[in-house]
């Protein structure tokens, strides 16, 4: 008697679970497809036509290919204007062959692992009582805070860059455009 009851219960549970799984799975497949569709086929590298200085720097470091690859990455792209704010000659020096290691280090400081949207940063800032730390590919971390509605990123030296255009979703991650160049320590 007991055996049969247990068996029945297990059988019911199994059926319930698999039905539940199937429903959930089909919901999730739909959601997954939508998210992927929204991002499109174009990679981060494809989206840098208007960010010439950053694109040129990537190419010099051999990272243009990286941002065309599977990723996913979150890239903080300083505008051409942001590069112009660097001390005179700084960018030219960085672009020289002998500075390649430093250039790569600078660029990878602007690449974060995974896909991070502006709302993700905002939530972490709120949960962190006003600031959040973001790990970069290059090995250092950035600090994120909010100034009004805008997200501001800071490096260890106190250099700041504000996100001017967030959530440019790509097939292999996301681009946030910023108005400053951040410096690894």
């Amino acid at each position, binding site marked *: 008697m007991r055996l049969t009851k247990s068996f029945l219960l297990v059988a019911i549970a199994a059926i319930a679970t698999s039905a539940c799984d199937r429903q959930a799975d089909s919901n999730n497949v739909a959601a997954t497809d939508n998210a992927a569709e929204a991002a499109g086929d174009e990679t981060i590298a494809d989206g840098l036509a208007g960010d010439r200085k950053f694109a040129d720097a990537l190419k010099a470091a051999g990272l243009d290919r990286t941002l065309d690859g599977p990723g996913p990455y979150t890239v903080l792209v300083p505008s051409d204007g942001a590069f112009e704010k660097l001390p005179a000659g700084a960018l030219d020096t960085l672009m020289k062959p002998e500075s*390649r*290691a430093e250039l790569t280090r600078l660029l990878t400081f602007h690449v974060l692992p995974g896909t991070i949207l502006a709302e*993700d940063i905002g939530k972490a800032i709120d949960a962190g009582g006003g600031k959040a*730390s973001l790990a970069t590919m290059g090995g250092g971390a950035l600090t994120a805070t909010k100034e009004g509605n805008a997200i501001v990123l800071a490096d260890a030296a106190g250099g700041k860059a504000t996100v001017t255009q967030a959530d440019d979703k790509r097939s292999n*991650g996301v681009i946030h455009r910023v108005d400053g160049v951040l410096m690894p320590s």
Partner: protein
Amino acid sequence: MRIWMLATGAAALAITAPAAAQQGGGQGRGQGGGKDKPAQVERGGGKAKDHAGHDGGKASVKQDRGGGSAMKADRGGDRGKPALANTKRDDRSAVKAARAEDRGDRGRGRGDDVRTIKVAKDGVRVRDLDDDDVLIRRAFDRDLFPGRGRGLIAGCPPGLDKRDNGCLPPGQAKKLIGTPLARTAFANSLLPSQYRNWFRDDDDYFFRAGDGFIYRVDRNDGLIDGLIPMAAGLGGLGGGYGGYYALGDPWPSPYNFYNVPQQYRSTWFDNGDDCYRYDGWGAIYQVQCNTNVVSSIVSLLAGDLGVGQPLPMGYDVYNVPLAYRSNYADTSDAWYRYNDGYIYRVDPTTRLITAVIDALV
């Protein structure tokens, strides 16, 4: 319902630290094979068999060198000056090592040959024939990350030049190739959890770690045939401390074999013209097979997350790729974080990374 789904669907993929630790002394199959073995893997990237040939003919392979006189020599341009010294003897040994490098590692001093290796509480003490006593730090402290610049570098004391590779100068590293694994200090350690899903034991090879290196060992003869420096990597040979190779840099021969982590092998495999190499630190490079020269960076790797470790600083922000967000949204019971091809589950209370629960490739 979601947690149910995860429990059933993810059970096959979940790998927890205690389970992985059962892998055993090195002869077992480990976690290898199975569904993760991609068909096109070409391991032939260069089974480095040269050992005696490199350093002016001094055959050092047959000596029982243990971890070698592993020095904390500072190679960042201050030749001859040790980066960090625990004792006066460390200074001398470090200076000797640096000088040996200056000589191009030709004629390594007889006095550097290892006499004894003693495992102490603070690490491994290697005494050489000159009676110099060198402390090699324990390669993997579970409480610490081999985080690149975020904390201690695996096996190396803090403050060490980031360009140092695993506390062993490259001239000495080279000599480990062709030697049996057992003779290397700490060489029977399992890989740190960050790397455990990347280099899995299989029918041809097994991987173990020690002294800041991952060793690939050929099952046929039990000899080390590949080295991957794990700490800060070599970085560009042109100087600097970025840790990355630059376009045009030659790939160093001790590390020249197809060593792309498991999860990326179906994407990047050696094909005759283009070879792919992982630097053990932060990137996979495309290297021209015939010239061994770096031609581009194909992927950046963070290497920050590992099962059983605490969630490191900088990962409070949710970073799961878009296509996976509907499956893996943060809840009060579980957080999800992405790193290097895998999605990890984190316990929000303890902040411990508890499992790998999905792989993107």
